């Protein structure tokens, strides 16, 4: 299981690195500012040491106390400014990166249209776009610059210490080869802790949510206290297992802490001995002087600070990796971009569409003839959804696509709407390749009806008139009448201004499908794509809606996907295409005048 978990994470790693590189300028600035802060501190330490040396009357201590005291505040200000700059640049990098990733994700979702459901509920997708993208923050803003600092700062300090005392530099520098080891230790401990925590928290969160979701049932059964006991037990179990892991994880950073503390103590003891003249080796020439010793002592803690910070920040990387896994997974689902949309000019070069109502006028360009020519569709995971299917639908013909779930009928509709691109073959609309037709020109000709149409928390009128700002109210009523909903809407206390919820609450299932129908009618689209519009309705309501569909869709090209088990095609259907396993197994016209037999 962990192996399977790690595979997508491994794929996310290069993605994350590539992405972080796009804001290299800002993270580089952050790292440079961090190094500048260290340089300022080195300068301040030197000044401080020289002042203290003059207190004990050390011969030859420079610069003079007065000038040292005058310059010191400037270095302190420079250090603070550098620190602020470091944070600011890191934040800039992170905000910029998150903005572009979010935009990209939204693009992908828009291209996927209804197919986004395969990637998760809209709530879950919003979580990816908001929370998961935000989880990249710490990695970009802090971890990346810190990686540079964890190497650069110790290096600067060793360079500064070396001229004063080679032994002190060695004492600190001896830990340098250990640094990668420390990073590994700290990193692995933190990563293990983080992974465990994330898993346990997800389990705990899942259990908690499960119990909260089931609360109505528990309350009605008078058993909510039992659920409380389960919540408590789960959280206590999480606490126990977490502590087991944390005990080890904290140990690794404690080792680092111990090294840091002992190194400082050892440097201090060595310096004391050298100053007393009891330890002749380790420095150059004459006896050790106080300014050199104090300078070294002040820098010793700084040597370890960035490394300790990196240990603290390591969880940011794990967090970002987990988020990147989710984000990269969503990005991978994007259909290949449509060439004509991406390259505007190429669309101009191709000849204009020979539609009878004039291809240039967007809305209401009438029914169209549709041709599938050897069309194949292979999903990203290698599954073949459609296998070289060919059929023609004449302008104004009404076709039922029948087949079990997974037979490919929804794929046919998604291809036609442009939410998917064929991996083989060609789809032609009035003789023109659909791939060369820019979506903004194609979409206004379509009406799309789903099993569960999408609604907005707005009035009934606004829900119908999406994208038609300032449309004539008469047109709206006309559409509602044709959809067989005018009487129902009039009966509502607030009429057309009655608000519905985003889940359509306020109207019944049948009324909602009629409302979706009105949406199609009001823009007089010539091509109707219906994906199981009757599936959620009870038989009586479904039969009513069928009758309305029969009259309303007259004169339009219509493709309606329907589950095998629903009743036989109504006589208003011109033709039935039966699909099975991505192939057309039957293509049969319906004889008008008689009921269709199976």
């Amino acid at each position, binding site marked *: 299981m962990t192996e399977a978990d790690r595979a997508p994470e491994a794929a996310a790693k290069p993605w994350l690195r590539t992405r972080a590189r796009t804001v290299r300028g800002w993270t580089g600035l952050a790292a440079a500012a961090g190094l500048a802060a260290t340089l300022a501190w080195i300068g301040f330490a030197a000044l401080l040491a020289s002042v203290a040396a003059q207190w004990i009357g050390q011969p030859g201590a420079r610069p003079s106390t007065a000038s040292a005291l005058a310059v010191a505040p400037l270095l302190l200000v420079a250090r603070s400014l550098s620190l602020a700059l470091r944070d600011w640049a890191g934040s800039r990098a992170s905000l910029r990166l998150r903005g572009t990733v979010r935009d990209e994700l939204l693009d992908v979702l828009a291209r996927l249209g209804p197919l986004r459901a395969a990637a998760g509920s809209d709530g879950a997708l919003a979580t990816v776009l908001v929370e998961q993208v935000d989880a990249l923050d710490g990695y970009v803003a802090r971890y990346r610059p810190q990686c540079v600092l964890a190497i650069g700062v110790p290096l600067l300090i060793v360079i500064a210490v070396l001229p004063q005392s080679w032994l002190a530099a060695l004492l600190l520098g001896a830990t340098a080869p250990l640094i990668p080891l420390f990073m590994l230790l700290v990193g692995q401990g933190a990563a293990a802790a983080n992974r465990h925590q994330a898993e346990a928290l997800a389990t705990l969160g899942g259990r908690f949510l499960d119990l909260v979701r089931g609360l109505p049932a528990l309350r009605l059964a008078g058993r909510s206290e039992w659920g409380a006991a389960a919540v408590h037990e789960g959280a206590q179990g999480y606490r126990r297992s977490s502590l087991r892991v944390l005990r080890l994880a904290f140990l690794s950073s404690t080792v680092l802490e111990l090294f840091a503390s002992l190194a400082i103590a050892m440097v201090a003891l060595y310096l004391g001995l050298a100053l007393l003249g009891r330890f002749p080796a380790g420095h150059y020439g004459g006896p050790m002087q106080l300014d050199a010793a104090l300078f070294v002592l002040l820098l010793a803690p700084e040597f370890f600070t960035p490394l300790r910070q990196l240990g603290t920040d390591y969880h940011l990387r794990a967090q970002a990796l987990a988020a990147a896994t989710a984000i990269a997974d969503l990005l991978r689902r994007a259909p290949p971009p449509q060439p004509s949309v991406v390259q505007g000019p190429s669309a101009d070069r191709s000849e204009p569409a020979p539609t009878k109502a004039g291809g240039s006028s967007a809305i209401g360009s009438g029914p169209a003839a549709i041709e599938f020519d050897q069309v194949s569709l292979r999903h990203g995971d290698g599954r073949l959804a459609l296998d070289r299917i060919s059929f023609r639908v004449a302008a104004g013909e009404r076709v039922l696509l029948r087949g079990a779930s997974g037979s490919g009928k929804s794929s046919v509709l998604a291809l036609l709407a442009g939410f998917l691109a064929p991996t083989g073959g060609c789809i032609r609309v009035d003789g023109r390749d659909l791939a060369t037709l820019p979506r903004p020109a194609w979409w206004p000709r379509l009406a799309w009806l789903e099993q569960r149409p999408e609604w907005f928390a707005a009035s009934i009128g606004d829900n119908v008139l*999406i994208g038609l700002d300032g449309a004539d109210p008469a047109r709206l009523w006309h559409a509602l009448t044709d959809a067989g909903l005018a009487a129902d809407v009039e009966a509502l206390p607030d009429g057309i201004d009655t608000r519905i919820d985003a889940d359509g609450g306020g109207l019944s299932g049948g009324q909602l499908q009629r409302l979706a129908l009105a949406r199609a009618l009001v823009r007089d689209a010539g091509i109707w794509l219906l994906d199981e519009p009757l599936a959620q309705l009870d*038989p009586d309501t479904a039969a009513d809606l069928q009758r309305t569909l029969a009259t309303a869709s007259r004169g339009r090209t219509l493709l309606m996907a329907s589950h095998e088990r629903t009743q036989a095609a109504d006589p208003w259907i011109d033709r039935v295409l039966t699909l099975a396993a991505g192939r057309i197994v039957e293509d049969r016209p319906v004889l008008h005048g008689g009921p269709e037999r199976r």
Partner: protein
Amino acid sequence: MSTRSGHAWRIVLRPHAGRFALAFVLGALTVLASLGLLALSGWFITAAAVAGAGAAAAAAFDIFRPGAVIRLCAIVRTAGRYGERLLSHDAVLGLLADLRLVCYRALARLAPEPLARWSEGELLQRAIADVEALDEAPLRAWLPLGWMLLVLAVVLALIGHVAPPLALAAAPWLAAAAIAVPLASSLLAGRAMRDLAVRAGRRREALIDLLRGLTTLSLYGAFEARRDDWRRLDQDLIDRRLRHRVLESCAQAVVVLLVGLGGWQLLRSGDRLVTDGAVAAPSLVMAVLASLATLEAFAPVAGALLAHARSRAAQRRLSDLLHAQPALPFGGTVATPAQTGALHLRGVARRHPGRADGIAPFDLDLPAGARLLVEGRSGAGKSTLLKLLARVVDPDGGCIVLDGTALTDYREDALRASIALLPQRPHLFAMSLAENLGLGDPRIGRSRMRAALEAVALGDWLARLPQGLDTRLGEYGTGLSGGEARRVALASVLLRGTPLVLLDEPFEGLDAQTEAAVVAGVHRWVGAGTLIVVSHRSVHFGVPAWRLRIEAGRVSLPRRDRD
């Protein structure tokens, strides 16, 4: 409001106070050892340098005692940090567990109906994210603030001990770094942060709106405009966050600057004292290094009050949840559950303001032991009728009497022991089959569970399960077909053994043969109890049943089968 939320918070916190106190002590030892390590080293080196100047003094200089203390500081710092981290995490996890429970109980009080007030995402947000923001307060605000005050006091005392005027010189700088900067930044950022949280919520809602209508918006050419609206919202939030961040890092930088300037001030003032011979150089160096070492304790404080503010915002939201009034208060006093399922409804109505689904006033009389079938189209109000009967919602008018007592007069436990409801979308828990059937009720034995599964025609299915009743069901009952899941939930409802049983579409997704078996099983199980079934199929119990139709919220008079 704030005292109210503070109260709930204190109650949750109390059992963990001991562990937090211990974590504070260990943390205090750590920061003091850190401080001591640097200050003492500075003193030691300077004293050694002074002594080193004269050969006799150098020979007499005791290096062992200071050396031992320095090493002790190094070890205390390491061990203290380890202990403090472990303890404070333990305390926080314990707090988290208790908060979850408090949160769950608050939601339980509101269940079943008002849960619909919050979307699932929001529930999760409240329950999980807020609980985590809450425990930020002790870990990131209170403990660091406590250590900061301690370090401030200790360092000023130490400097004062070296030379009182020096303490006066350093105090303004250190106090400004420790107290003024965090206060100022929290004053500046506190309001902005509340605003940020509101805006973030709004952005999320706008995004969900955008995603929900994505297909429609893109097909009908309205996506780009909406997306630009959302982008503006997003950009606005990003700008505000950046400003907030800049404020935070500026506060941090100012703390660093002030601590540095405090050291510088000591250098300046000390320089005069040392040349006057009023202070020994080693002590002065110790004071300077001690004041510089305060940074380790002061730096986290710049963000402490912000963490506190975040936690307060979460506290307030949690408090809203804790003090939300349930839509259905249970004020009844009748403690005996109903003995029979005789029902009398008078003028019962339920309207949803501004919405089309609802039920117009109607009467209904049903004798004990009756079988009632409720028919009607989807959305006509059938489910609303069942919710009224189970007191998931109360009617806007009229009265429902079960076994001679109005539903509103029952105490909650008595009511729950009188009525069982199978909702249209029953919930199965990601737990064992037995737990799903009995919901932890010790009175329901395993043999009875098996019998109930037999009654819903799952006997053979159970026999095929290798782990039988201990089989774990996945989330949402995964591993079960839709029909099996519904029947497990149905068996759980039957096991409650109530005199009134309400079933919403219990036979959906069953083939004719299974349906007949389940109908017969349920009929037998309910026996002398009253059974009300909502179904759009015709159901035959083998005895005359009552039938009732609902058309657009209008309930017809029940009529009885004649067979």
